[in-house]
């Protein structure tokens, strides 16, 4: 162990890590890709797929079809990838409760293990984006300022400057990104859930996504500082105007009432 950590700063260490990581992702991809067709073998992976299939036929098949091929009530899931499942089920959007302008985030009803099994099953139907690893979504080593620029170019138009959310047409909305697991943000960018467009690695690189997540973490995290005081929802002039009217002018009018009021008279005896 000690030896290993001593070599951490070796010029070739990065290359080695990269190779290992590539091998791992490659392996993972091979395991998830439909080509694996691991019908007969009894590995954990195929167990997961079997479990996932069971969960799917109970919870999802009524809308997405028994083989995930889709129906009039739900789109085909062939090729959406594990990332889409992890996002949709992991944020509670799926299973959907009622039809509306948009399926919103709600309480998650599956455990992470079940979600992984479902994801494994869907991934076995057709190749798609995989669930990002911890290091892909960690803010370490990311360029926050570049992330900010990317966020303002690609995301802020719907999700607001710092990810507070915003309105779309006919009751649809871009949700607030506050308190959303970085993993889910990554998956959303990759898969483009519902009306959100996707930002695949070919146009928004892995590094770009990492930067964006780091920026969000910096400006909309749990202990993001708002130097000026109350953030007022971070919504800009509308909430500032309301605050100015209610608390600013309101306080001043209250003070004016005091200034102008007659002082209490002594009681007549």
């Amino acid at each position, binding site marked *: 162990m000690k030896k290993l950590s001593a070599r951490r700063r070796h010029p070739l260490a990065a290359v080695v890590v990269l190779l290992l990581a590539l091998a791992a992702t490659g392996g993972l991809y091979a395991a998830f890709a439909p080509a694996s067709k691991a019908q007969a073998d009894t590995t954990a992976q195929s167990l997961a797929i079997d479990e996932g299939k069971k969960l799917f036929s109970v919870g999802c098949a009524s809308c997405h079809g028994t083989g995930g091929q889709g129906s009039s009530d739900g789109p085909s899931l062939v090729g959406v990838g594990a990332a889409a499942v992890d996002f949709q089920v992991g944020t509670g959007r799926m299973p959907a409760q009622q039809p509306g302008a948009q399926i919103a985030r709600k309480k998650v009803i599956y455990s992470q293990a079940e979600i992984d099994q479902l994801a494994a099953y869907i991934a076995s139907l057709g190749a798609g984006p995989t669930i990002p690893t911890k290091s892909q979504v960690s803010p370490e080593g990311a360029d926050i*300022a570049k992330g*900010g620029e990317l966020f303002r170019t690609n995301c802020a138009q719907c999700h607001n400057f710092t990810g507070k959310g915003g309105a779309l047409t006919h009751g649809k909305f871009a949700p607030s990104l506050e308190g959303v697991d970085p993993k889910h943000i990554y998956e959303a960018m990759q898969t483009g859930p519902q009306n959100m467009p996707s930002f695949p690695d070919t146009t928004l690189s892995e590094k770009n996504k990492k930067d964006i997540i780091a920026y969000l973490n910096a400006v909309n995290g749990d202990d993001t500082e708002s130097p000026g*005081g*109350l953030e007022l929802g971070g919504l800009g002039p509308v909430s*500032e105007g309301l605050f100015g009217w209610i608390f600013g*002018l309101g306080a001043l009018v209250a*003070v*004016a009432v005091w200034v*102008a009021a007659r002082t209490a008279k002594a009681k007549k005896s």
Partner: protein
Amino acid sequence: MSTTTTSDSRPSREKAPAGEKVADWADGRLGIYSLAKSNMRKIFPDHWSFMLGEICLYSFIIIILTGVYLTLFFHPSMNEVTYHGSYVPLQGQLMSEAFNSTMHISFEVRGGLLVRQIHHWAALIFLAGMFVHMMRVFFTGAFRKPREVNWLFGFLLFVLGMFTGFTGYSLPDDLLSGTGVRFMEGAVLSVPVVGTYLAFFLFGGQFPGGDFVARFYSVHILLLPGIMLGLVVGHLILVFYHKHTQFAGPGKTNNNVVGMPLLPVYMAKAGGFFFLVFGVIAAIAAIASINPIWSMGPYRPDMVSTGAQPDWYMGFSEGLIRVMPGWEINLWGHTLVLGVFIPLVIFPLVLVAIAVYPFIESWVTGDKREHHILDRPRNVPTRTAFGAAWISWYFVLLVGGGNDIWATHFHLSINSITWFVRIGFFVVPVIVFVITKRVCLGLQRRDKDKVLHGRESGIIKRLPHGEFIEVHEPLSQEALHTLTAHEQYQPAEIGATVDENGVERKVKGSERLRSKLSEGFYGEDSQIPKPTVEEYKEITSGHGHH
């Protein structure tokens, strides 16, 4: 010669106190004694709503003080620089010097953020204060002769305040304000014939160019505030000259003003109120963030954020522009951009609608007397209803200006809100007008009942034959006077159409209109005749004693 006279005038006393000597010196050059004679003990009536104007005055002074401080650090330049300040999420980003220096004020200058926030909060409160002050003057009829000019001064201050605010909001060159400036450019472009030229002259070429921050800066810190300062001084001189209005009450007539003297009471109250206003605004700037430009980032014409709104006072124009259908006419190689130009034309009309009302009213009443006793809003139902309708109009547009925020926070469709505003623009003011008028008439009836039958005492009495009645207490003479002090106009008739020689004269259209309007303002449906002495006597004697 003069020295002897001076010494002669104080033969027995020793020296005058130092303050008096200074005052003598000043009087000899400025005539301050004559000035102070009529002003030092000037009487101001006490009412909280009379202090709304002071809120505006004081926030204006606060804005000037903090604004001067900000100019010490702000660089009105659009040269691109790389950010190397202490705010990490913008490190290494390209931005204009204007943005960079605003970041510097916010993060590196100690207290700079506070001053920035005081400046901006005070600006929002200044405009909100002017709005409320204007409405107070409107609903109490304080704009009537001799104060029409001061009403216009105030109105101009409100409009100039809006534009001063808008130019100031644009100075930091952040992503939000840049979007606002872009909108402005689009609006200027929509002007038929000269729009393109105007836009090029305003921006020194194509948008965004490198000039607008510097140009807006001189407009924001010099041109508009200079004019406003002049108007404020004029406004205050007129307030002193006219003496303040007052509400009706015992001892208060159209020929006097009842209240407390400037020295010492109002010196302390008004002077103290300045500190109160400043204190409240400073505390607000300590606890609530405003315009956090660091989270918006520097302006780039290819970037935008949702929730792009102007400050509240421009919100109604934003509403106009958002709800307008996209009409565009192409004729003979030219484009008439009605979708933008019509809102641009309605924008001043909304404001002018309220500004000209006083003149319409005085034309309808034909009243040439001075008015120093304020109206209770209920006693002038048509005016009150018009004012309420105007406010509702303004607020419908404000809702339109924030339609995306309402949509997300109340889970509504942005399209439905837009449609609501499109229809509400025409319908809501009418409904509010009708309702307000009815409420006013109801209140007038209640006042009449109170005068004629007394105040409901809450005491229930059982009469010998078993009937229960509530005892009504007669009002004091003070209350009776206050409730009957208002004047009621009668609808103006069209004068005789046949002169003494039997020649028929032509009735002018304006005369007809005036008579129609007068009927609408003061006709049977628009006011409840106030109780007369005869009615009162008949009822009080008829009822006997309670």
